[in-house]
């Protein structure tokens, strides 16, 4: 079995994101970037499946600017076998990413595509489902448990009501939740080894897909600030305030 894992480079989740003064976006210069957190879970799951002998090859793919390669390199350091970097500058919408990934799937013919459930920059939660539709593959989104069977996967999904279990035949798309597993750290020797693993570079413009933006970002602004609250001295005061001032109890 072959698993393709899509990883995105985003502002690190610990960074306090700041809006640019000109309203065109958020500040990214000199800001720490990392792999989108659930994409680490996607890689980890693929590596675990390979370690259990059920997968032969893991290919990590990213779509983005030159530096996006770092996320592929990191995936190689934790166990992916080779990488693909589809080069394209600027903001690229999930629809375009999924069309690019469709081309990569056509070329690589994986049995599974693993991705994160949501990118923490755009918070779109779209790309996996879109790729599923374009390929006409079944999708198992928000996965918190995966069991690999003969020609299918049994996947537990986190939904608003609790948990849901479905079975998807391969080839299939899985989007991963953070609770799927505990991503490992790359060891120094593995980081060194990863430097020798191949990363194929492809220009998005050579893939023949329409990557033009369909959505115009008119402005990006700070959300309204909450006005500062107070500290109360004790529980009695808290209850009095809630009752007499805020009038919520």
């Amino acid at each position, binding site marked *: 079995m072959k698993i393709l894992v899509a990883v995105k480079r985003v502002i690190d989740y610990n960074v306090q994101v700041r809006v640019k003064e000109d309203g065109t976006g958020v500040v990214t210069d000199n800001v720490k970037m990392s792999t989108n957190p659930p994409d680490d879970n996607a890689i980890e799951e693929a590596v675990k499946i390979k370690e259990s002998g059920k997968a032969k090859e893991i290919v990590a793919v990213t779509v983005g600017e030159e530096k996006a390669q770092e996320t592929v390199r990191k995936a190689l350091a934790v166990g992916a076998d080779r990488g693909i970097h589809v080069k394209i500058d600027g903001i690229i919408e999930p629809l375009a990413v999924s069309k690019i990934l469709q081309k990569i799937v056509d070329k690589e013919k994986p049995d599974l595509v693993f991705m994160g459930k949501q990118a923490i920059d755009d918070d779109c939660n779209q790309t996996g489902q879109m790729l599923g539709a374009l390929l006409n593959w079944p999708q198992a*989104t928000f996965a918190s448990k995966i069991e690999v069977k003969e020609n299918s996967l049994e996947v537990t999904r986190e939904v608003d009501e609790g948990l849901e279990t479905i079975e998807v035949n391969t080839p299939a798309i899985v989007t991963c939740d953070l609770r799927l597993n505990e991503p490992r750290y790359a060891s120094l020797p593995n980081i060194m080894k990863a430097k020798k693993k191949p990363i194929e570079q492809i220009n998005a413009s050579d893939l023949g897909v329409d990557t033009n933006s369909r959505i115009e970002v008119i402005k990006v602004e700070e959300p309204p600030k909450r006005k500062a609250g107070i500290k109360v001295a004790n529980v009695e005061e808290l209850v009095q305030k*809630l009752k007499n001032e*805020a009038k919520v109890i």
Partner: protein
Amino acid sequence: MSALLIAEHNNKELKPFTLNAITAASQIDEDLHVLVIGHNLDEVAKSISQIPNVKKVIQIDNEIYENYLAENFASAVIKNAENYSHIVCSANTFGKNLMPRIAALLDTSQISDIIKVISSDTFLRPIYAGNAFATVKSNDKKKCITIRPTSFDPAPTSGGSAEIVKVDAGEANSNIKFIKREEIKSDRPELGTARVVISGGRGMQSGENFKLITAVADKLNAAIGASRAAVDAGYITNDHQVGQTGKVVVPDLYIAVGISGAIQHLAGMKESKVIVAINKDGEAPIFSVADYGLEADLFEALPKFLEELNKLNTIQK
């Protein structure tokens, strides 16, 4: 043209958030039709037809839709999408799972999780866990939009009498099979719509200790929430998680207990009307959004809180 809203339901009743999505959808286009797909749905379709904002109900009833599989739903929506400028759904796990499949098949760039309708093509949506708000304009012919339900009021449920049209089912996808659903049932108000929410975090230390939260929740008729750390640690099930990757709640009163206030948690609750934080660390970031902060050990504060609440005899349910 008109807008088409995809209803969320459990084959028996409409899910309450569909009403909020209906409000948003009718702000986009007053000629709002609702597509309801499922199995043995007559009651649900009827209840939708009574919503005054709804001009027409399209019902697709077949056993292949019993478990809301996105593969089957998406092709049913596509078959009925032709005459609509907007396809709309609420941005909970149902809509998140489904809408991008529809959007890709229509070759549309979806706009997720809008919190305001500015015009029929321009919307406000939070990005970066709500640390920025983006105003975005869709240039696609057909627009696919999901709605953050807590940002819109629910539509009234009676007074309307829209016609109900039944249409044929589409094909079933044979590559996916529903196995089971473990739905956590409770008598409490739903997290998403409760007037009061009390949430526990890692500071609770154990699932057992959540009984302190439960006791207060009982008293205030509150829903129970949790941080991701509390869910990850197994103190409580995933359906309680509030935040960027959990649920968004906007209650009148949100009480955060033993929660530090990471941005990913704030993303799910900072629009609440009144926020209370109980935390023993005076520097915890949760205090920066709290209207009333109590720096205290929760194991002393919660029992005392309950005691004080019990002294009041006027708690509104």
